[in-house]
C-alpha cells in the first residue's frame, strides 16, 4: 500500500483543486448596478464617471494587508479565481505610493488612481507620440502583473480586458478614458485605432498609423519588439 501513497496524495490534491475551481464565484457582469459601487466609502481624490456617478474610492494602506482582505485593500472575496489575486503594490513597477486610491468603477472593476492617471497620459500633446506606445506597454505590463498574461484579440477586445473585463476584474484603463471611439477601440492621437498584435502571453506589438492615419505606411509608429515572422 505504501507505494500508492503518492498517488493518493496527488489524487487528493487534484480533487481539492477541482472543488475550488468549480466553486469559484462567477464574474460579475461588467455593467454592475451603480448602487453596488456607491455603497463603498469614498475618500480622498474623489472623481466621477462619465455619467456623473461618483466612483467609489478606498485608500491604499501603507502596507499590504493580509488575511481575508486582498492586497492593497482589495477584498479577496470578490476575486474570481483562486490563483489570480492582485499582487502586492510593492512589487509593481509603477505607482504604488501609499495613499493611492482604489476606485471601484461602475462596471464593478477596480482600478488604482495612479494607474488611471497613467492611462490618461495617453495622447498628451505635450509628449512625443512614441511616449504613447511606451505608456500602453506600461499599462499592459501592469495588467500582466495582475493577470499573468496579456489580453488578446482585436483592439476593442483588448480594451475591454484592460477596462476590467478580466478574471480578477482589475482595470488599467478608467471608464472615463478619453481616446475611445464608439466601438470601444483605443485611438491614437490622430484618431486612428491602435493596432494590437498579440505575439505571446507576455509580448504585444502595438502600432499607431501615424499622422496619415493609414497603417503600413512610412509614418507608422511602433516600438521594436524583436519579433519577426
Amino acid at each position, binding site marked *: 500500500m505504501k507505494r500508492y501513497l503518492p*498517488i493518493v496524495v*496527488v*489524487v487528493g490534491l*487534484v*480533487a481539492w*483543486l*477541482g472543488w475550488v*475551481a*468549480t466553486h469559484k464565484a*462567477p*464574474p460579475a457582469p461588467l455593467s454592475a448596478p451603480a448602487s453596488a459601487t456607491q455603497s463603498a466609502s469614498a475618500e480622498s481624490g474623489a472623481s466621477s464617471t462619465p455619467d456623473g456617478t461618483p466612483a467609489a474610492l478606498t485608500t491604499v494602506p501603507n502596507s499590504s494587508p493580509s488575511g481575508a482582505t486582498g492586497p492593497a485593500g482589495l477584498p479577496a472575496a470578490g476575486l474570481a479565481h483562486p490563483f489570480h489575486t492582485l499582487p502586492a503594490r510593492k512589487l509593481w513597477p509603477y505607482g504604488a505610493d501609499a495613499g493611492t486610491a482604489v476606485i471601484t468603477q461602475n462596471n464593478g472593476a477596480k482600478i488604482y488612481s495612479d494607474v488611471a492617471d497613467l492611462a490618461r497620459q495617453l495622447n498628451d500633446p505635450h509628449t512625443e507620440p512614441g511616449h504613447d506606445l511606451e505608456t500602453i506597454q506600461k499599462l499592459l505590463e501592469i495588467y500582466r502583473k495582475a493577470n499573468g*498574461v*496579456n489580453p*488578446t*484579440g*482585436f483592439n*476593442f477586445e483588448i480594451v475591454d480586458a484592460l477596462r476590467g473585463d478580466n478574471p480578477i476584474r482589475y482595470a488599467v484603463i478608467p471608464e472615463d478614458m478619453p481616446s475611445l471611439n464608439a*466601438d470601444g477601440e483605443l485611438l491614437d492621437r490622430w484618431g486612428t485605432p491602435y*493596432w494590437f*498584435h*498579440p*505575439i*505571446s*502571453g507576455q*509580448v504585444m506589438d502595438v502600432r499607431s498609423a501615424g499622422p496619415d492615419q*493609414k*497603417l*503600413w*505606411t512610412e509614418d507608422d509608429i511602433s516600438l521594436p519588439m524583436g519579433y*519577426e*515572422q
Partner: protein
Amino acid sequence: MKKHHHHEITRRKFVRQSACASLGLTGLVDSLAHFTLMDAAMAQVANTSPYQALVVIFLLGGNDANNMLIPERDIDVFDSNGVSAYTNYLGARTVNSNKVLCFVDPRDSSDPTKRSLPLNNTTTNTPDYKYGVHPKMPGVQSLYNNRQLAFVANVGTLCVPLASTADYQSTSILLPKPPQLFSHADQYIQWQSSVSTQPFTNGWGGRIADLMLAGTGYNPSVSMCISMAGVNKLQVGNATQQYCISPTDGVTQMSTGGGGNDPARRQVIDNLSKLVYSHLMERSYINVAQAAKNSGDTIDNVLSTLTSTQNSLLTSCFDTTTYPDGLMVQLQMVAKMMLGRSQLLGSNAAQRQIFFCAVSGYDTHQNQAGNHANLMDELSASLLAFNTFLNDASNKVGNTPLSNFVTTLTSSDFTRTLTPNGDNTDTAGTDHGWGGHQIVMGGSVAGGKIYGQYPDFRLNGGRDTNTTNGRGRWVPSTSVDQYLALMARWFGVQGSTTYLTDTNPNSNSMNMILPNLRAFDNPFDSSTANLSGLLPASPIII
C-alpha cells in the same frame, strides 16, 4: 554491475508517464483507470511493420486559409439566413470596388489573376464550381483532382466543442476556450502539443515517437524525429530527442572554427565516451555528444552515398533554382532522408519517421496580395515536387509507390480574419483569426474531397467569434485533436471507434497521444465530424 539505461524508455514507462501527464481535472477518471492497468502494459511490438512517415509543414505566422481554399458560385454552403458562403465571402473580402483579397469563380472574372482554380467534383471529375484554390496553386489543384490531396476545413485549437458565437462568448466553465487565442506563440505551441487544456510538456510527434520507441525498445541510429527547421515543440518527447539538420547542408560537423571536419576533436569525443563516469550528469553529457557525432556521421553517409540516379531524380523533382530556399529545399532534404531511411533507422527500430518543416512569412498583416501569392506558389510547387518524388517508379516499396507510406500535412498558428485590415489592394492584409483549412497529401489519403465542415463565412453570427464588429474569426468546427487523430491512427497508433470508452492502454493508445480527443465527436466514424475515410488505419497497430 547492474547496467542502467536512464535515457531509454520502455513501453511500461511510456504508459506510466503518459498517464501521469494526462492527470488533470478532465482526465482524472480515466487516468485512475490507467493506473489500475499499468501492470498490464502492452507486449513489445514487432519491428516488422512497413515503413511509414509523417511530414508536417508548419506555416508560421498564420496562413490565410480563406485565401487558399475559396468558395465558388455554386457552393452549397449557406448560412442561417440562406445566404451562400460565396456571397458572404465576396461581401467580406471586397472593399469598395477594389475587390481586396478577393478571388471569384472563373466564370465571373475576365481577370485571370482574380480567378480561383476550380476543383473537380469527386464523382464527375469535372469542375462543379463549388470550391477553388488560389490562382497560384495549380499544383495543389492538380493533386486534389488526382485524389492525392484533400483539405480539412476549419480546424483549430479547442478544449471542448464550441458550436457557435454564443458558445464562444459563454463564460460557463463547461465551455472553456484555449488560453491566449489569437496569439502567435501560444497557438503555435498548442497546435504542436495538441493539448490546449494544459501547459506544454511535450509535442504530439514526440509522444508518438516515444510510443514507437517503447514498442521496439530500440533507439534508431538517428532520431525518429528529424527537423528541417530547427528546434520545435512538436517533436519534443520524453525519450525522443529531435534531430535538427540543415535543409541545404545536412549536418555541420565539428570543426575548429574554419569549417571542415576536425579529426582531433572527433577523436576526443570518442575517447571521452570510453571513460567511466560516476556522475550521471557527466555520463549523460558525453552520451549526448557521442550520439550527436554518430548521428551526424550517419546522415553524412546517407548524403554522400546517394547514387547518381537518386541525385538526378532529386534534381528533376525539386526545382531549387526557382525556389532556392524555404519549403522546396526542406522537402528535398526530407526526400534524401527517406532515401537513406535504412541507414537512419536500422533494422531493429520501428520503421517510422516524423519530419518537421516550417515556412515563415505567413503573418500577412500587410501587403498580403503579393506576399501571400508568393507563399501559395511556393507551397503548391513544393507539394507537387514532393509528390512527384514519392510517386517515382524508382521509389517503390515492393510494388507500392512510396507515396502510399508517406502522409504530408499542414499546420499553422491560425487562419486570418476574413475582412482585410485596409482598403488598399496592394498594402492591405489580414489579422489573426482562429479555425482554418489544412492540407493533407499522400497516396493513402482519400483525396479529392473536403473534410470537416466548411464555414458559411457569415459575419457577426454563425461561427464568427463576435456578434458586433466581427471580422470573420471562425470558431473551429474540427479540433486539432480530431485532425491529428486520423494521422496518428494511420501511423499506427491504436484508435478504434470505441476509443471514447476504451481506457485500456493495452487496446487503445490513442488517448496517450491525444489526451483531449475524447472531448470531441469521434473522428473515425462520426458523421458530424466528417473526417472518416480521410486516411485508413494502419495495418500494424503500435
